[in-house]
């Protein structure tokens, strides 16, 4: 991004928005202190063992594509040209366990089941002088 507007998340509590744009965003999750299961989004009670001892933590935004699609309709809530002709969406398996659904960067041909992806923040619109950002995933080679 050429400008340097302050960045705010499309919705707080799902991913980090580092002050330094060069720092990669992280995914906000819950980890169960009893059984070790991770959850996204964060939650108070463990969905696996129902322990109440969950802790909020973050994990790196990277994983593999479980499934994907390309939507031929503009991204809701976005004013950016790049989303007007549609956008990719992926179900991403994080190595810690959670499966999350978020936009993918690129066209249909760039996606494949099992492909590695890394997260980045992208502005979808401006609001009160801020860039409203959404976490999305970009395919990486290898």
């Amino acid at each position, binding site marked *: 991004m050429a400008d340097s507007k302050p960045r705010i998340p499309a919705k707080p509590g799902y991913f980090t928005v580092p002050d330094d744009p060069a720092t990669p965003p992280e995914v906000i999750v819950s980890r169960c202190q009893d059984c070790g299961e991770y959850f996204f989004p964060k939650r108070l009670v463990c969905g696996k063992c129902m322990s109440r001892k969950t802790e909020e933590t973050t994990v790196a935004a990277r994983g593999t594509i479980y*499934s994907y699609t390309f939507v031929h309709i503009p991204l809701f809530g976005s004013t950016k040209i790049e989303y007007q002709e549609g956008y990719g969406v992926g179900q991403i398996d994080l190595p810690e366990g959670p499966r*999350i659904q978020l936009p993918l960067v690129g066209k249909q041909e760039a996606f494949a089941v099992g492909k590695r992806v890394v997260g980045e923040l992208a502005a979808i619109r401006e609001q009160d002088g801020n860039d409203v950002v959404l976490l999305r995933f970009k395919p990486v080679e290898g």
Partner: protein
Amino acid sequence: MEKVAVAGVGMKRFGFYPDTSVHDLACAAALAALDDAGLTFADIDAVYVGHIFMPVMTGVRAIKEIGLTGVPIQRIENASATGSACLREAYLAISGGHYDKVLVVGLDKMTEVMGQTPSAPALEDSILPAAFFAMWATRRMHERGTTREHLAKIAAKNWNNGALNPMSQRQPTTTVTVEGVLKAGMVSWPLTKMMACPIGDGAAAAVVTRESTAKKLANGRPVVRVLASHLGSEKYERGHLFMGPVVGPAQMSRDAAKDLWEQSGIGPEDVDLVQVHDAFVIEELEYYELLGFCKEGEAEACIERGDFEPGGRVPFSTDGGLIARGHPGGPTGLAQIWETVHQLRGTAGKRQVENARIGLCHMMGGGSVCIAHLLGRE
């Protein structure tokens, strides 16, 4: 436990009704169901009314348009499975001995609530709901070699079934082909517009009674019993999706079918026709397997053989399904009951399944609940 039957059904064809209030839509369906049962509103012991989208008290106010008799009225909501949930509550109340004659009504006007979503999107709200179903299809294609032609064949079947149903929202005047479905505009790869259900308005209703009461009202028609009723929610397993409008874990539908067989003592080989939550074609494909109508991995071969087409082994979505008959929300589950009751009575006209005795109705609600019923002709 009292045995339970569906004594009457009524429906307002799903579609677009800009000049008709949702109350009038509900009235039309409810009065049709009362007439079909041979009852009046004064006979009714309790009402369950369901809607997803309309404002608070819409359903209760709609019932007031039919009559004010002091009857207990309860609003029910369980996403797409709302109408099915109304039937289930009636089933539980009657089988538990609390009521004899219960009116269930589903209503919604999606066209009145479109565009009323919050302007500031939440995280997953920025994504078109169809994308979540499309990803189920992409994964299936990866695992099983499913083609877009398989998906298109299901869509064409349901559109063409809709042409035979006077209550279907979509009634194509010429035969819908696989090529036509594939050529329709892409919504979310691999799903085209013709592989998805439409939005719409409408209402559907049923009168549910003790079997003994239904026999008195039958007037020569076969009595249609509720043989089993299931409601389940999600179980956690690794890979569970907690975000957004999702399709829900496949296990919910497997569990639903297993419960129906256990309650009724019959199996999928005894079922003559099936209605499912085919909001998108990939769902119907998956439910062939998950409900036990073919083995895992065999859905594609069954589609190629026409097992679930009219005249096939077990016809699915005989009224056009959500794809053609429509899916306004609250009434959808009761439209499945309307169709199944007509099929079991032998009054389904051009789409009649020959000698139909047992029908299964299955709905998902927001990917988070699954409701299923088994109906049988005595």
